[in-house]
């Protein structure tokens, strides 16, 4: 193996003089007082390797020894990834002793002695290609297939396979050989470099089905499709994390991978605390059972922020290859971009806009491109749905990370400072935001069949009422309450009704936090019914008095279980109130 010596240190950027061949992105280790500190080669110039250290450079000296691994940054893939809490380099945080993480501390991602109930799926003589299943083990509620490792090229024949039974992960469960007579032993675990997409699928499909988040402003107004992508930009405190956590709780995916990238530790602690208790709507089991957390908070090594999102994506693709529905959430992709910027500055590269590296748009595009719904060679389908948050400097969306992401993500959930200040949560601006999937014919057909025949028209009607309401509000504030026709007040209050009764949703209320599609369509119909009926009012204060009462009843309904007695009671009150005010057309 190649060895080297440190020649220069600037924060966590090292220059290493090497004595042999090395690869771009190869992992190397610096020896410091008996510890090995991990670093990744990011540039090579002659016999000098530039390496980014996944630690602080404190205490290192010129002349310190470095050895190279020959491997790229890889993750372990196998049963047991679910319910684990990893750091950005896939170290198992639970396996680390003590309350503090010591520099250079590493723990295996999977416990190779842990036993799983293995069932063979093929017989000796079967011919497999990379990604083909040869066995299966139960992992929590999930069927975890054991596949021919993705790194294998060409066709391989099973020569031996273990009978059904309990084996530790490291046990050799199958032996294979290829046409050249090379043979290989297979355990239940394989490795894969995180920067390379896992591409063993047959084809990628256009997303067509809705991915349910339980949030009205998303599912109804700007839905994300299964296998789709979305980004959520917003100034600090506008609700990105609350929104992602709400989606992490409400979804019906089979696997959820949460990447906390350069954000607060306490937010992850909140998940550690609640997910073992909360129920998964899809299976009735605990949320923790289907969730893997990759946690590289802002005080953890900056260089590992980049790794963390790729580690998350690679695990997501792994479960997708088995035919599962995977949800990947990353909070915040801006921290990863900032880590790239810090390093690029230290390398004295020519900077792009706002000092970000010029390749930033390409890096972001490649990453979002890894999401999607795919069909495997055996006909099963799996998907990775990806939502990333963006933290634009000063809350201004005209900055490189937001702009680069806007070019690749298909849904845009713009968090508005004004809405957040007014505590109108979720602070997603319903009109500025969009979902490209609404324009997909496949998606429209799906909505017509599974929600309501004229659903998309209704959604558009609600959006029209909202924008009419904004115009009316502007007119009222320019001309004054008295100087505009009464209709302006009605238009304004209709949009307020849609906002308060439908768009706003309390993520901290056990009932309101999650709304089924059925409930969403009931509520939207009810709201539109009120907006569409002709009504007569004496003056503008009568308009606001009426709509405030209506809004109040809708809120009470949102706080009650769907179709419960309370819900019906408020609904009848609404009906009565409504009849009082209606006139015949």
């Amino acid at each position: 193996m190649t060895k080297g010596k440190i020649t220069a240190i600037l924060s966590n950027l090292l220059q290493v003089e090497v004595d042999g061949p090395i690869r771009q992105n190869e992992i190397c280790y610096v020896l410091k007082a008996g510890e090995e500190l991990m670093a990744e080669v990011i540039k090579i110039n002659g016999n000098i390797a530039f390496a980014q250290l996944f630690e602080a450079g404190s205490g290192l000296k010129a002349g310190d020894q470095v050895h190279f691994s020959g491997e790229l940054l890889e993750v372990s893939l196998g049963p047991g990834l679910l319910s684990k809490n990893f750091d950005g380099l896939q170290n198992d945080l639970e396996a680390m002793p003590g309350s503090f993480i010591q520099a250079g501390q590493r723990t295996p991602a999977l416990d190779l002695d842990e036993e799983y109930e293995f069932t063979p799926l093929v017989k000796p003589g079967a011919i497999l290609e990379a990604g083909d299943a040869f066995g299966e083990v139960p992992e929590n509620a999930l069927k975890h297939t054991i596949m021919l490792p993705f790194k294998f090229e060409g066709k391989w024949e099973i020569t031996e396979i273990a009978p059904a039974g309990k084996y530790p992960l490291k046990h050799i469960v199958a032996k294979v050989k290829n046409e050249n007579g090379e043979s290989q032993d297979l355990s239940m675990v394989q490795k894969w470099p995180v920067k390379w997409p896992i591409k063993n699928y047959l084809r990628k499909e256009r997303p067509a089905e809705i991915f349910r988040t339980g949030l009205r402003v998303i599912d109804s107004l700007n839905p994300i499709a299964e296998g789709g992508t979305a980004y959520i930009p917003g100034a600090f405190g506008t609700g990105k994390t609350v929104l992602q956590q709400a989606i992490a709780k409400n979804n019906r995916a089979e696997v959820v991978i949460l990447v906390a990238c350069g954000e607060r530790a306490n937010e992850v602690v909140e998940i550690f605390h609640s997910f073992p208790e909360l129920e998964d709507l899809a299976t009735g089991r605990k949320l923790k059972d289907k969730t893997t957390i990759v946690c590289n908070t802002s005080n953890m090594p900056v260089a590992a922020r980049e790794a963390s999102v790729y580690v998350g994506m690679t695990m997501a693709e792994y479960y997708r290859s088995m035919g599962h529905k995977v949800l990947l959430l990353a909070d915040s992709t801006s921290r990863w971009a900032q880590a790239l910027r810090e390093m690029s500055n230290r390398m004295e590269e020519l900077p792009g806009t706002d000092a970000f590296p010029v390749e930033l748009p390409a890096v972001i595009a490649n990453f979002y491109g890894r999401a999607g719904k795919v069909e495997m060679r055996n006909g099963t389908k799996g998907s990775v749905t990806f939502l990333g948050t963006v933290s634009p400097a000063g809350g201004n969306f005209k900055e490189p990370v937001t702009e680069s992401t806007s070019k690749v993500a298909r849904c845009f959930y713009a968090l508005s400072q004004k809405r957040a200040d007014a505590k109108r949560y979720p602070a997603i601006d319903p009109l500025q935001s969009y979902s490209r999937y609404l324009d997909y014919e496949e998606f429209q057909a799906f909505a017509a069949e599974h929600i309501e025949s004229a659903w998309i028209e209704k959604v558009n009607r609600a959006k029209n009422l909202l924008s009419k309401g904004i115009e009316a509000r502007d007119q009222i504030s320019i001309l004054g309450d008295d100087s505009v026709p009464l209709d302006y007040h009605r238009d304004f209050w209709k949009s307020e009704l849609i906002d308060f009764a439908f768009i706003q949703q309390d993520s901290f209320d056990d009932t309101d936090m999650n709304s089924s599609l059925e409930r969403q369509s009931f509520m939207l119909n009810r709201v539109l019914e009120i907006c569409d009926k002709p009504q007569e009012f004496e003056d503008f204060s009568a308009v606001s008095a009426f709509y405030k009462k209506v809004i109040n009843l809708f809120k009470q309904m949102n706080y009650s279980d769907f179709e419960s007695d309370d819900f019906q009671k408020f609904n009848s009150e609404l009906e009565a109130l409504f009849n009082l005010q209606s006139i015949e057309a």
Partner: protein
Amino acid sequence: MIAKAFQPIYSRIKALTKATITLDADGVQYDELAWVDGRTAQVIKVDGKEVSLQVFSGTEGLGTNAQVVFSGSAPNIHLSPLLAGRYFNAFGVPLDGKDKVQGEERDVKGATVNPVRRQLPSELLATGIAGIDLNNTLVTGQKIPFFADPDQPYNRILAEVAMRADSDRIVLGGMGISHDDFLMFQQRFNSSGAGDKIVSFINTSEDPPLERLLIPDLVCSAAEYFAFEKQEKVLVLLTDMTLYADALAIVSNKMDQIPSKDAMPGSLYSDLARIYEKAVQFQNGGSITIIAVTTLNDGDITHAIPDNTGYITEGQLYLKKDPETGLTIIDPFRSLSRLKQNVIGIKTREDHPQVMNALVRLYADASEARSKKENGFDLNEYDERSLRFAEAYTRELLDVQLNIGTEEMLDRGWRLMSRFFKDYELGIRQNLIDKYWPEAKS
């Protein structure tokens, strides 16, 4: 500090800037401390034999033949219970004329707490200020700054909060604070009889600006010692973090780093996060709560310093003067405590979340009415009511001078609502209205 025996002395400086020097030296560690003609300096770059150091007090008057001695280690601190009641400068040297503190020597950078070993912060930290306890409830283990224009009495309020909040230990980090404010803190601590529970690391506006770069690490190391090893509830006060960030910008500028927004270094987010993330609730009961001050320029929170701070901390308390009443308040709109969810309505009365939100919403209606009025429009009856409500809300709840319990705040909230509004105008859950409205009404 004394150099270790047999350390070589270098005396050929190759390059000098206002804040840094460069020379050839062997076996130097990254981050190592050194002395340049007695001035403290720290290694910030190693390039082969060439070493660059930042000189904390500046390089003014240094000769190219200045004597450079390396200490052999990164900045460290001596930890012991004897730190209590003492005042130190940015190098940990006593300011109070008493002896140096003996104790275990430790690297000030410290290790990261394993996130799975953190506890969910959920112990209420009451201050008696409604702008905090009612609207932006704090918990131990939280990190939150005051955002304040320079003309606001932020240090006085910080001292007041520190004296009222329940804690075992207070660690104060002063960065570029005025000497007057330093004396104010000292006096406030002593007059409350809390002098013995406080440890202070002080860099005033009279001290060299780069020295304040050392303050947060000293403060956090001391705080971590008391919180983790002594299981104490530690309150950390950091003021003014804007001046700390300004010092970071000076160094990165002298190092020819490409600045990002507002001439700040591209690593500002990581630099600040490293400090603020020291806030923690340990499983053993100890905790570190950080309350900081970030001064603003003309209320501009989009500037890189408050902006990055907002992205790191768990909310912010925005101090301002209410133009109607002239009282200092914590702005209900732009302030936020992100950990309040962990306690409100759970550790406090059930109606807390809804009452708080309703009051802020009604206050927002008043501010709309005010702008209507300013634009010369007639106010309707509702507008008039909400304006009267806003003034009462400010005087009876928001005023930072008040010192009341949380239940009393909630009761006052109900009374205010019933004085000015109808129950259906509140948007509060019916079962809470049924329970609290009639009493408030009577």
